[in-house]
C-alpha cells in the first residue's frame, strides 16, 4: 500500500493517544459539564443573565446549551488550541520533522494528515462535551421538554435533536480556530506560543466586538459565530446566522490553512 495523507492521519491519531494534552483537553470537555451539573443539583440559583440559564432546573437539556454559551469565551477555544497549536510545533520540539520528512511522504501530505487529526480531536471534544452535558444534565434536572428562545416548548427528543444540530453549527467557528492554531503552530514552531496565541486571537475577537464604535464589525468576527446555533433554538428556526457563519468561518479558516500549508512546504528544517 502506498502511504498517503490517511497514513499520516492514522498515525497522528495514534500519537495523540499517547500525549497528555489530548487527555487534558478531552478530560476538561467531559468534566466541566459534570461539575456544572453537580453545582446545579446542590444550588438553587441560576445564571439569569444568560439564555437558557433560568431553565437549568426545569430540564437537563438546558445545561449543554448554557455550557456552549459559557464555553465560547475561552474554554472551547483553549481545548481546541491545545492540540491544534501543538500538532506541528511538537515535531519541532521533538526534532522529528527531519525524521518524518525524509521518508516517502510529501510535506503537503504530512500537513494534511495533521489538519485532519486536529479537526478530528476538536470534533470529538465538542461532541463528547455535548454528550456528557446531556447525560449529566438529564440526571440532575431530568430529560424534559425545553423552552426555546421564542418561548415555545419543544419535546425532549426534539430538543435533543436540536442540541445535536447546535453542536455541529458550533463546530464551524471551532474548526476555524483550529486552523488558526495550526497556522500559529507552523509559524511559531513553539507549542506554548501557538496555544496562547490562538487563545489571544479568540479573546481579541471578543474584545473588538465590544469596543465602542466597532460594533459594525461584529457580524464578521469569529467570536460572533459562536452564537450562530441559537438560530436553531427559535421557532421557526432562524437560518440567517447559521448561513452567515457558514461563510464567515471559512473566511478565517481557509486563508489560515493555506498560509500554514505554504509555510510548512517551504520552510527549512534545520532544527533538531
Amino acid at each position: 500500500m502506498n502511504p498517503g495523507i490517511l497514513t499520516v492521519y492514522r498515525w497522528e491519531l495514534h500519537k495523540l493517544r499517547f500525549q497528555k494534552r489530548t487527555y487534558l483537553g478531552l478530560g476538561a470537555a467531559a468534566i466541566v459539564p459534570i461539575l456544572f451539573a453537580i453545582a446545579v443539583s446542590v444550588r438553587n440559583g441560576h445564571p439569569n443573565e444568560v439564555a437558557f440559564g433560568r431553565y437549568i432546573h426545569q430540564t437537563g437539556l438546558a445545561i449543554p446549551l448554557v455550557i456552549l454559551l459559557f464555553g465560547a469565551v475561552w474554554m472551547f477555544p483553549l481545548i481546541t488550541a491545545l492540540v491544534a497549536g501543538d500538532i506541528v510545533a511538537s515535531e519541532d520540539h521533538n526534532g522529528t520533522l527531519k525524521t518524518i520528512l525524509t521518508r516517502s511522504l510529501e510535506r503537503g501530505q504530512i500537513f494534511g494528515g495533521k489538519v485532519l487529526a486536529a479537526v478530528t480531536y476538536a470534533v470529538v471534544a465538542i461532541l463528547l462535551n455535548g454528550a456528557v452535558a446531556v447525560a449529566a444534565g438529564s440526571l440532575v434536572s431530568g430529560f424534559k421538554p425545553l423552552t426555546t428562545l421564542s418561548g415555545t416548548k419543544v419535546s425532549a427528543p426534539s430538543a435533543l435533536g436540536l442540541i445535536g444540530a447546535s453542536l455541529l453549527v458550533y463546530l464551524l467557528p471551532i474548526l476555524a480556530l483550529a486552523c488558526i492554531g495550526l497556522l500559529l503552530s507552523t509559524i511559531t514552531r513553539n507549542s506554548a506560543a501557538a496555544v496562547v496565541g490562538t487563545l489571544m486571537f479568540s479573546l481579541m475577537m471578543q474584545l473588538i466586538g465590544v469596543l465602542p464604535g466597532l460594533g459594525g464589525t461584529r457580524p464578521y468576527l469569529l467570536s460572533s459565530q459562536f452564537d450562530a446555533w441559537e438560530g436553531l433554538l427559535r421557532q421557526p428556526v432562524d437560518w440567517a446566522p447559521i448561513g452567515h457563519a457558514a461563510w464567515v468561518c471559512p473566511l478565517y479558516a481557509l486563508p489560515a490553512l493555506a498560509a500554514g500549508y505554504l509555510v510548512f512546504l517551504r520552510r527549512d528544517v534545520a532544527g533538531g
Partner: protein
Amino acid sequence: MTAAAPLEIRGLTKVYGDIVAVDDVDLTVAEGNVYGYLGPNGAGKTTSLRMMLGLIRPTAGSVQLFGRDPQLGVRALEGVAGFVEEPRFYPYLSGRRNLELLAAFDGGGAAARIDEVLSVVELSDRAADKVRGYSHGMRQRLGIAAALVRGPRLLLLDEPTTGLDPAGMRDMRALIRRLAGGGMTVVLSSHLLGEVEELCDRVAIIRTGSVVYEGTIAELKRTATGAYRLRTTDDDRALEVCRAQPGIVDPRRSAGAIHFNAGEAAVAALSAALVEAAAAPVELTPQAASLETLFFRLTEGQDGAAAPEPVEVA
C-alpha cells in the same frame, strides 16, 4: 545511458546571513563507494547533508540523488535514507512503534523489515521500551535502524559515531563496513580522520564550507608529508644523503637524531639510498601521523581563519 550516480552535487551553496555554511561544493559519489565527508566542527557537514536530504533549500547549486532532485519532491529519496545530527524520535512511543510509523510512511515492504533491522542494530530486546528512556547510543542505533528499514541503496549518515563509547564506535563502524560490503553506497560525515581512513574509499575534506581535498585516501596519503625521526649507523653521512635526496624537506640534527619532513614515497626512496650509502637506518619513525598533519594543514589554513577545535583521532 549509464545509470545516474547515487549522489551528484554541483555548486552547492548555503548562506545563512553573513555565514557561508556551504560554499560551492561539487562532488560525485559512485555506486558502492563509502565516501567520507570530513571536516572540523562548523565546516558545513550537517548543512550539506540537510540539503542532500531535501530538508533545507540550497541558496545555489543542486543535489541529485540517483538523478533526482530532492527539492522537487520526496520521490528523489526513493532508495535513500539517513539522518543528520542526532536521530530524533517520538519519545512517548516505543522504539518499535517509531519504526512502525516510519515504515508506514515509507510504504512498500518497509514494515516487513522491522524485526530484521532491530536485530541488526541489536535493539530487539529494548524495542518495546519508550524512546524517552533510550541512551544516546541506543538512539543512534535506532537511527540506523530507521534508515535501514527503508531498504536504501544510498545511506547518508551524519557523524554516526559521535557520542558513542569506544565499543559503540567499533560496533557502528563494523556495521557500516558490513552494509558497504553488501553493496550499499554510504556517505558518512565525520570529524575523525581515523574513522574516515578506516572506513572510506574516497574522501572530501571540507573547511568553512569549501572542499579543500577530494580524492582517494591512498592519493591523500601519497601527497601527505609528515615529520620523521631518523637514526642510522652513521648519522653524519646520513645527513648528507638526506640533503641530497629529493623530497626530503628541512633535514636537521637535534636530540641525537636526524629530523626531516617528507612524503611516504620520498621516505621509502631515502631508506634505500641510506643502505646504499652504508648508513643503514636503525630507527626511522614518523613523528606525527602524516595524514593528521595534512588534515590540520588543510582544515586550519593560514588565511586568518580561527583555528578549529582540536581534532580527535580515534
